[in-house]
């Protein structure tokens, strides 16, 4: 039997809401219809706090906290939007855009990409940093899917979907810093990976055009990341 969970009250943007102990700020905000931008978070997957887009202000401290990994505390007062937050979120998105080759006009996910939607919602039409233009490969070896490193933002949603949900743990991040890449098995080609079950969960979880179904032309890859979340919820239902 589950113990009844303790109710806590917190303030989000001044509004008093009641939340359950153990929830993160992001979960409490979502449950109450409050929007916080996110990229690496996907409901159902273990949060990792990689993208820093969900940063919020908490009264009483100058530090910014990622809403997706910070648990709520009773009496906490959270601010989800301010000039300061917008400034930092904008930097994060700009840096993601310059790191790889996000050429939306020729991307399979053009129009259905979480990075693109965030950038346009934030009014980012130009970036103030120099583009990195790395020469990165595309892995076409899988019979059904494609991995394009040029679009990857290293959010690890694919890593977690494959490890936590499918239990195959095909993906990880190799190297570090600017040299980090998504890698399958021992740096084998995806199509040669013996652990991949071809389930496609990683593709649906990926927020950008980095993972896509084969044969999609520009704009044709529509992801169903919510399928991942609902799959988790269905598994949680106790019969």
């Amino acid at each position, binding site marked *: 039997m589950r113990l009844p969970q303790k109710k806590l009250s917190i303030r989000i943007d001044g509004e008093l809401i009641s939340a359950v102990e153990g929830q993160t700020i992001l979960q409490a905000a979502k449950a109450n219809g409050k929007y916080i931008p996110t990229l690496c978070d996907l409901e159902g997957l273990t949060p990792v706090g990689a993208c820093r887009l969900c940063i919020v202000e908490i009264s009483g401290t100058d530090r910014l906290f990622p809403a997706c990994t910070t648990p709520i505390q009773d009496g906490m007062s959270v601010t989800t939007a301010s000039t300061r937050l917008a400034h930092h979120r904008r930097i994060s998105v700009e840096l993601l855009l310059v790191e790889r080759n996000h050429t939306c006009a020729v991307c399979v996910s053009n129009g259905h990409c979480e990075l693109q939607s965030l950038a346009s919602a934030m009014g980012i039409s130009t970036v103030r940093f120099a583009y990195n233009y790395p020469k990165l490969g595309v892995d076409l070896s899988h019979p059904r899917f494609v991995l394009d490193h040029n679009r990857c933002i290293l959010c690890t949603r694919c890593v977690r979907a494959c490890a936590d949900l499918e239990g195959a*743990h095909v993906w*990880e991040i190799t*190297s*570090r810093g600017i040299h980090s890449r998504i*890698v*399958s*098995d*021992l*740096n084998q080609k995806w199509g040669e990976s013996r652990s991949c079950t071809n389930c496609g969960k990683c593709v649906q979880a990926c927020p950008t055009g980095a993972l896509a179904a084969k044969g999609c032309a520009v704009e044709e890859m529509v992801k169903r990341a919510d399928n991942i979340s609902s799959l988790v919820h269905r598994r949680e239902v106790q019969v």
Partner: protein
Amino acid sequence: MHTASLERPNAAERAFIDQVIISRTGHPGALLGILESVQERHPNKYLPLETLEYIAAQTNTPLSRIYSVVTFYALFNLQPQGDNTICICRGTACHTRGSRNLLQSVRLELGLGLEDASETSEADKTLLTTPDHKFTVRTVACFGQCAMAPVVEVNHRICGHVNERTLQREIRTVERESY
């Protein structure tokens, strides 16, 4: 990109790996310790892909996790290492005291060619082995011995205030010793 080599662990190696796994399992950071001991035992101080596969199978670790760990830490090698290792510090202090020239002169000295433009993007990571497997030249981000800059490590021995001449002498010495 790594093109790690294939080499199936033989029975003795497998026995050693099994032994290491038994002694380490349950301790925090077990995987790191296992990989380190196995690499240390290899005559060429590296981890062949098939060894990684074997460790993955025996410890029930996903292959990608193992690959991620061995590529995250500079300590692990996926390529056979030369008999002697020259490790040149490319940290800030050593850089300002001319470690780039040291690196270039060692490369020339050992016939490894000069750095080309395509490499500069990965300048923080040089790892070269001579075709006869006598020498491996690599770089490190800082030895923590900045007061002695420029610092070069020759077969795990730290040498400070190195110049091209003293470095050349060091190389000659280890070369002679390894015959």
